[in-house]
């Protein structure tokens, strides 16, 4: 099965190799460049300062278009659509499943062999790129908040790859045609990751309520805890704990110079509040979201195996 699978999917194999090499090279290159900044100390050059030579320009360009950061989110979905979805679907489409499944190998063995030979190299590839990405994010040190790069971290990258491939294989087995299965996979991966990121992620653990009488304590949410994930927008509460508008808060406190505001607010019981997830929960959250994707992947793989062994044809 090893040889057969390689012979059947070597084109995809080459694409994976190219994509992985490009992503790794880009990540290593930019990481290296960030470690050797071009501007002399003391010159305010913004967050990232790279040398003005051609290599620096290229690195700057890679950073500006976020090649690595976008690639690492997009590539798992593409792998699911272009490698996972056709795995079974193309056999059914071409009728070759009638050839493959009447040889001296049971369908269970056939699908397990295919899946393992598909998953092992792609997991290795996503792990390599994911880890390099972690180094890259670290190198972009002036943006310390990891929550902004939550989707690009290594655990989630690997889990997303597993999930996308599983969805692709299951959709391909159940639909039996490559193109629709690819579309379902792309939409499914994007929808799942979007839903998790936007609607679910904030609720993995109960957020903590930040509350202060100093209206400037949040300083754009970064002042209080730069490593935290600040949810929604800050709001204001009166002494009774009711949410009030910013104008209302200012009206109650009256005028006064900015330096007096904390005292004023304290006297009137007004506070600025915002929910947040503290920075030390970052890896717990990574584990939870990766776990959700992996659990979904296991269900989908079970479905794919069931469909291949019991339902198809």
């Amino acid at each position: 099965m090893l040889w057969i699978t390689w012979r059947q999917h070597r084109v995809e194999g080459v694409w994976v190799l190219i994509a992985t090499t490009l992503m790794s090279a880009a990540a290593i290159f930019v990481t290296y460049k960030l470690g050797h900044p071009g501007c002399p100390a003391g010159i305010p050059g913004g967050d990232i300062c790279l040398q003005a030579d051609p290599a620096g320009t290229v690195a700057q360009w890679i950073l500006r278009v976020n090649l690595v950061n976008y690639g690492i989110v997009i590539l798992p979905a593409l792998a699911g659509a272009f490698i996972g979805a056709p795995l079974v679907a193309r056999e059914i489409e071409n009728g070759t499943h009638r050839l493959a499944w009447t040889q001296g190998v049971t369908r269970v063995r056939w699908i397990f062999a295919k899946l393992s030979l598909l998953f092992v190299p792609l997991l290795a590839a996503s792990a390599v790129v994911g880890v390099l990405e972690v180094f890259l994010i670290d190198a972009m040190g002036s943006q310390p908040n990891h929550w902004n790069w939550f989707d690009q971290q290594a655990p989630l990258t690997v889990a997303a790859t597993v999930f996308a491939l599983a969805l692709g294989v299951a959709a391909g087995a159940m639909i039996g045609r490559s193109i629709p299965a690819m579309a379902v996979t792309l939409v499914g991966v994007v929808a799942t990751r979007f839903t998790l990121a936007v609607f679910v992620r904030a609720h993995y653990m109960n957020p903590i309520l930040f509350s202060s009488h100093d209206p400037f304590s949040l300083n754009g949410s970064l002042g209080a805890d730069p490593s935290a994930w600040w949810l929604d927008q800050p709001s204001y509460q009166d002494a009774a704990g009711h949410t009030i508008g910013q104008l209302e808060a200012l009206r109650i406190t009256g005028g006064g110079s900015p330096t007096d505001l904390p005292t004023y607010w304290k006297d009137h019981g007004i506070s600025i509040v915002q929910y947040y997830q503290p920075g030390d929960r970052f890896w717990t959250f990574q584990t939870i979201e990766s776990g959700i994707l992996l659990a979904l992947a296991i269900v989908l793989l079970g479905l794919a195996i069931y469909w291949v062994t019991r339902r198809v044809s």
Partner: protein
Amino acid sequence: MIAPIEATGLGKRYGKTWALQNCSIRVPVGRIAALVGPNGAGKTTFLHLAAGLIRPTTGEVRVFGRTPQEHRLLLLDRVGFVAQDTPMYSQFTVADMMRFGRELNLRWDQKVVETKLRSLNIPFDREIAKLSGGMRSQVALALALGKNPELLLLDEPVARLDPLARREFMQGLTEAVAENGTSVLLSSHLVADLERVCDYLIIINGGRVQVAGDIDDLLAAHRLLVGPRIHEDTRPPGVEVVRAQHTERQSSLWVRGKVSVLPAGWREETLPLEELVIAYLSAPAAGTLAKPQLEVA
């Protein structure tokens, strides 16, 4: 001896349509059996059921005494199957396909395949997509034979071949199975090609089995009676009319059984296989109830 294929009450329904219904067939061992019927008669469905590719809705099919859906491990190595349109990996070369067969089958006989393909002058380094229809079918057959199967199932193996390639294919098949005593069931809607090769005939029509029996027995049991015009409802005694055709002055009756004394003015002709098949196919109601092989046995 356990029958290579034994179906009882076998039926397969897709949605509301029955592709195959109440089908009971016993394919004898060591024979080349032909599964004949018009397009959409259920031939492919029957072969897929026997190959274990699909599950029956009703009844069961047993291959060497076991259901192929449940005993894949035991049966897959013993059964060779060539699906309709001979699906193969079009990017593979002939040599790749041989390796495919070798890696997936325990009983693989590389020499048989190589010898056969060499004798047909099929280049091993050619891609499947670039083979002619005849070569492609031969490669598919060689791969199935390479499994050294005890039962060979072929779904319309010659449907897309020209007459010469058809003859070559059938010849190759006969030679190959004669050596090992392999049982064969092949489906076709081209009856002319079967006569030389097959010795057992199963006619299915509209998802039902119409006729099943030894071809020699069937030929011996059927006659064409031609005589002066008779009334359409007239049934000659002692025979069963499969099909009747009446012109202004003449009546033709395709009958099963023997007429002891031919009435004056009537003559009796033997039926070529193709005529026999067409007689049944054009009269779907005939033969479904009484099975001819029981009468001639």
